[in-house]
């Protein structure tokens, strides 16, 4: 009997217990099989509390059970189990009437990654004082390892905040697209709404684009892009871990 057969039977309740499991131990195998599924469902419930809150306990348990059967873990780290959960939810016909569910799951998955990302000391707001207009134009930055951006066509940050108790429940009168910024400058994971063009700006910076060029890209994506605001946020929210400026007089 191969491990593969054993593993297959573990995840699919329709398969018979592996032949090497003696008749007297079949019921124990069933218990083990159930424990595997339940522990993975619990891992999803822990990682996606806002999704669970939105769809309700029962629906979540059923959706998670389906997911577990189709997407067994591919990593030993159970904390990041459910990388495909957002895509899975979006394909689930029953979720079609909750169009933001996939992005909500993406935001929650990104928070886990930010939590476990490498530590790095972010550059503080005093960094701005050492910059000049010249050095600023050609400045290249390395974003902090925990920084992630989730762009959504829905008010995803507000929905997340209301479903995790960060913000009281209320009608969302201003229902518009939001880009979420996930970061962890020190110990706690922070989630905030990026200003217009902020996602394009940070994405360009993450690709080592010089700052002036990144600002232009952002301006093209959002006419009301505010460079001052984004520049301040870069260093006051701890989004940058390193920066490099070409030495004076370098010809490139």
């Amino acid at each position, binding site marked *: 009997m191969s491990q593969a057969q054993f593993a297959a039977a573990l995840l699919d309740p329709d398969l018979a217990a592996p032949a090497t499991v003696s008749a007297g131990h079949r019921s124990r195998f069933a218990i083990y099989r159930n424990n595997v599924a339940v522990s993975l469902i619990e891992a999803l419930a822990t990682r996606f509390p806002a999704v669970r809150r939105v769809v309700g306990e029962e629906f979540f348990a059923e959706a998670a059970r389906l997911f577990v059967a189709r997407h067994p873990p591919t990593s030993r780290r159970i904390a990041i189990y459910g990388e495909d959960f957002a895509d899975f939810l979006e394909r689930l016909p029953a979720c079609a009437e909750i169009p933001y569910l996939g992005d909500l799951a993406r935001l929650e998955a990104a928070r886990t990654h930010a939590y476990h990302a*490498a*530590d*790095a000391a972010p550059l503080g*707001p005093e960094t*701005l*004082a050492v*910059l*000049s*207009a*010249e050095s*600023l*134009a*050609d400045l290249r930055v390395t974003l902090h390892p925990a920084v992630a951006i989730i762009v959504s066509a829905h008010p995803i940050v507000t929905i997340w905040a209301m479903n995790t108790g960060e913000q009281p429940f209320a009608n969302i009168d201003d229902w518009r697209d939001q880009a979420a910024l996930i970061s962890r400058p*020190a*110990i706690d994971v922070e989630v905030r709404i990026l200003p217009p063009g902020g996602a394009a700006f940070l994405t360009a910076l993450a690709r080592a684009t*010089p700052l*002036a*060029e990144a*600002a*232009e890209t952002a301006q093209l994506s959002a006419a009301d892009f505010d*460079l*001052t*605001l984004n*520049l*301040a946020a870069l*260093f*006051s929210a701890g989004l940058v871990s390193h920066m490099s400026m070409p030495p004076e007089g370098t*010809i*490139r």
Partner: protein
Amino acid sequence: MTTKSGLTKATLASSLAAAIALVSVQAQADAKKTEKCYGVALKGHNDCAAGAGTTCAGTQPIDYDGHYFKLVPKGTCTAMKTPKGAGSLTEKM
């Protein structure tokens, strides 16, 4: 300047100046709501973050170890009493 940017240097300079003003206002506004407090955490309940790629949060070996800190509301640290003395804003040797 080799940047083929349409942003003028003047725009960059004014944005930079405004950003510096903005962050100094922010800094005054929320001047850190917590402080690191040494010697008050119970075993395994410390908050510290150490070294690249690692975290030592929750690794404190004994109760009230002066080498480990916990983040506490600003201004409350030194008022905290433990069986091993009050909390300290610096590492206790």
